[in-house]
């Protein structure tokens, strides 16, 4: 390693860059239409493979020339499968089409590519300013985002390294290989970057600790063991732009003095595994990884390790144990992995988003990064927003944006005219916040103060029909199942929490249950060995704090105010509204619980009813006769005439 100007590196890299730019030029300058299809897991799940196939078939059938360019995820899950068609000869700018099914694909080829009609009714917007079609940038979902990590996601083909290089990729690596490791670490430290895995530890300080540890060998691990239910940021980044993560890993390894690195990705992410493995191979071929990277003296070998999907293996010591072939159980820290990690070698573990933030930071400088976000949490936050929200998907926003602006402006608010009730941030380790917190700025410290946490970035928005006790039960069910079983508090404590919550949702809550939940939760937080146990009670504690009356209704009145807990709700038909002779509800009831009354209206046999709610959906809106109540004893008595046939038997 020779820090300082190294012309060999520049020469080698400019040869690669030239090749990339040549390809890019040929691609952009050709008048042939380009069809960009989002082909990450989210797109595929919504039918992107069928869409692609339909494009290929119709293009061949009609003998239309076009290039199909598979790209990653652009983050707009609500609109998948997403297709952007760039048809230079049509005079239109590149156009973003949402929800392109196979049929729509055929229609677009026929009408847009064939006849130059872009079909305005199917357009979401144009990807650039123009006079013909409103630009996407006019929508809050687009213009309020700030993309640092995901800038290239959805624009480049993740399986083509030259696509990344043409967009400026790997130039930062070429640049920093000519700096000293200390210069790099100082820059990262000055940028204020904090670990995006959840805890928010300053990345620069972590790197410095690793750098200052004297050892023959050091290892860099990229933690892509994303396990939160409803979180998919890391997967999307690996599937959409793996090279930015690899570049970040290479920079990290060079800075701390490591020659081995591992991408720890769960095997439930087969596409991410494939794409990142392929990307490593391509980088090696171009000399961007391997021995003597870009002609410098720096070697780095990156392996992919597939985790088996245990949530606790996202915890760094358990992650290390699992690579070593043992049960994924955490151990006490210190010693921290930076001192004693994988195979007892000093190991630095960073999250995917942290590593992917590194190239843009070093490219644009620490001051640029500090300008984004807040003072103590610079940069951007990536959330996967799911639940009762109009525009679900991946959003990258500057830190400090309020929850209100994120949920209501950027993501379009709550669907079906429902009221906002709560937002769960940080996955099963995070907390449920009520509407009093909507103006809380999103950053590490404000969220922790509110009792939630940044976590890895999962965000579940809930409307008024959500029962908070049930939500707490759901998350505890998850953490309890994912407890590794090592320490007493987490193993047995979370089980008790779950059992108590289960009986609350069944209306079997006992006096003192809420107090027991509280003290147990506090003790589990204080007493557990690792982060899983220390944070597992958060959903219980926060929902108890902010929605206590809802818990009390479950215990004291056996009532579920949100009408969600099945055991505490019942259906009946309002006989003043129910229409004589109408059978809509009876025909859809899966358990034959609907019976006909003496005046040919309907009643519900509460013994048979499984509370699926089908009748509520089936009842014609002009009658709207189905009522759902809690507690179940509010149901009026409706006499059932004994079935004559049965009686006769």
């Amino acid at each position: 390693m020779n820090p300082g100007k190294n012309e060999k590196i520049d020469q080698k890299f400019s040869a690669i860059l030239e090749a990339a730019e040549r390809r890019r030029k040929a691609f952009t300058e050709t008048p042939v239409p380009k069809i960009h299809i989002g082909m990450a897991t989210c797109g595929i799940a919504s039918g992107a493979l069928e869409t692609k196939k339909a494009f290929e078939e119709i293009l061949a059938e009609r003998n239309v020339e076009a290039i199909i360019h598979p790209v990653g995820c652009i983050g707009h899950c609500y609109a998948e499968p997403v297709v952007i068609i760039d048809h230079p000869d049509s005079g239109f700018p590149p156009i973003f089409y949402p929800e392109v099914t196979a049929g729509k694909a055929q229609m677009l080829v026929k009408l847009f590519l064939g006849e130059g009609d872009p079909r305005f009714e199917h357009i979401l917007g144009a990807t650039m300013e123009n006079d013909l079609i409103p630009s996407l940038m006019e929508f809050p979902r687009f213009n309020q985002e700030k993309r640092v990590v995901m800038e290239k996601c959805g624009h480049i083909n993740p399986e083509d390294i030259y696509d990344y290089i043409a967009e400026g990729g790997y130039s930062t690596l070429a640049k920093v290989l000519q700096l000293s490791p200390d210069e790099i670490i100082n820059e990262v430290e000055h940028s204020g970057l904090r670990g995006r895995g959840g805890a928010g530890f300053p990345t620069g300080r972590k790197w410095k600790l690793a750098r200052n540890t004297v050892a023959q060998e050091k290892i860099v691990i990229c933690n892509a063991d994303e396990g939160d239910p409803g979180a998919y940021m890391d997967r999307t980044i690996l599937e959409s732009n793996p090279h930015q993560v690899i570049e970040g890993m290479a920079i990290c390894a060079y800075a701390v003095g490591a020659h081995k690195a591992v991408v720890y990705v769960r095997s439930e992410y087969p596409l991410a595994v494939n794409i990142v493995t392929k990307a490593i191979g391509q980088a090696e071929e171009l000399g961007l990884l391997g021995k003597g990277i870009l002609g410098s003296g720096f070697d780095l070998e990156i392996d992919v390790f597939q985790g088996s999907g245990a949530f606790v293996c996202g915890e760094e010591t358990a992650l290390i144990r699992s690579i070593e072939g043992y049960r994924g159980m955490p151990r006490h820290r210190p010693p921290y992995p930076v001192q004693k990690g994988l195979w007892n070698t000093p190991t630095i573990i960073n999250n995917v988003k942290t590593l992917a933030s590194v190239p843009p930071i070093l490219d644009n400088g620490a001051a640029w990064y500090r300008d984004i976000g807040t003072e103590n949490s610079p940069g951007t936050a990536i959330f996967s927003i799911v639940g009762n929200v109009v525009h679900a998907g991946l959003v990258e926003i500057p830190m400090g944006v309020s929850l209100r602006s994120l949920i209501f402006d950027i993501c379009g608010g709550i669907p079906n005219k429902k009221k906002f009730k709560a937002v769960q941030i940080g996955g099963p380790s995070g907390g449920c916040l009520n509407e009093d917190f909507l103006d809380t700025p999103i950053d590490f410290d404000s969220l922790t103060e509110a009792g939630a946490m940044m976590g890895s970035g999962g965000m579940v928005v809930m409307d008024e029909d959500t029962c908070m006790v049930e939500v707490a039960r759901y998350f505890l069910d998850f953490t309890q199942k994912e407890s590794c079983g090592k320490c007493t508090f987490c193993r047995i404590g979370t089980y008790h929490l779950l059992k108590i919550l289960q009986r609350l949702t069944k209306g079997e809550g006992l006096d003192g249950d809420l107090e027991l939940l509280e003290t147990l939760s506090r003790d589990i937080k204080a007493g557990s060995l690792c982060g899983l146990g220390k944070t597992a009670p958060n959903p219980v504690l926060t929902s108890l704090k902010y929605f206590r009356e809802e818990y009390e209704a479950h215990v004291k009145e056996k009532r579920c105010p949100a009408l969600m807990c099945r055991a505490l709700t019942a259906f009946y038909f309002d006989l003043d509204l129910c229409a004589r002779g109408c059978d809509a509800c009876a025909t859809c009831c899966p358990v034959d619980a609907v019976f006909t009354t003496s005046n040919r209206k309907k009643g519900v046999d509460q013994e048979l009813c499984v509370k699926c709610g089908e009748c509520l959906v089936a009842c014609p809106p002009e009658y709207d006769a189905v009522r759902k109540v809690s507690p179940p004893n509010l149901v009026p008595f409706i006499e059932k005439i004994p079935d004559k046939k049965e009686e006769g038997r």
Partner: protein
Amino acid sequence: MPKLRVDGKEIETKQGTTLLQGCLDNDIYIPNLCFLESMEDPSASCRMCFVEIEGEKQPITSCTVNVKDDMVVKTDTPAVRQLQRTALRLLLSVHHVDCKHCPANKKCELQRIAKFLKVGLKPKGLERYLQETEIDRNHPFINHYPNRCVLCGKCVHICRRQHGQSVWTFAQRGFDTVISAYGEAGASSLTCGKCDACVKICPVGALTFKDVQEDG
């Protein structure tokens, strides 16, 4: 030799030892289940040996801290006792309390800790959840009682130390975690039957030789 202050008492300990061992050596009892002095990395899994150390915000497990000169330690604060009592209650909530028929009666660590912490063996408030399997007879010579086991892992550790590898291992996950020998295949290659290290070290009578009367 480091000198420290524990509960107002000046004590002297060996260099490089853990705080827990240092206290135990000086006849200051701190409840513990999973700690063995010979362990290189204490598993710190029973979450019993909490103490408060001056300068630390929260109670901390004394098996994971090495003694330091001038350390000021309290073993008997309300916060420490709260955690210890909860940990014990949790363990007892999955323990088949039937001391009369248990071979560990009167030498049982749980009994000792319960007495020390003044916690009843049948704690109120928590439901009791026992495993279906009362006796796991998979091992050729030794019976395992999952409903007595506190999962301290001492048997796993001691067996590995004596034989280079362990007959016993943790099986299952989470609440279902048990100690298991995975049948005879593993055991037959070892000198089980002559060696009684695991049976001896078990703090609660969860491992017994088969010739001992089975229900007690």
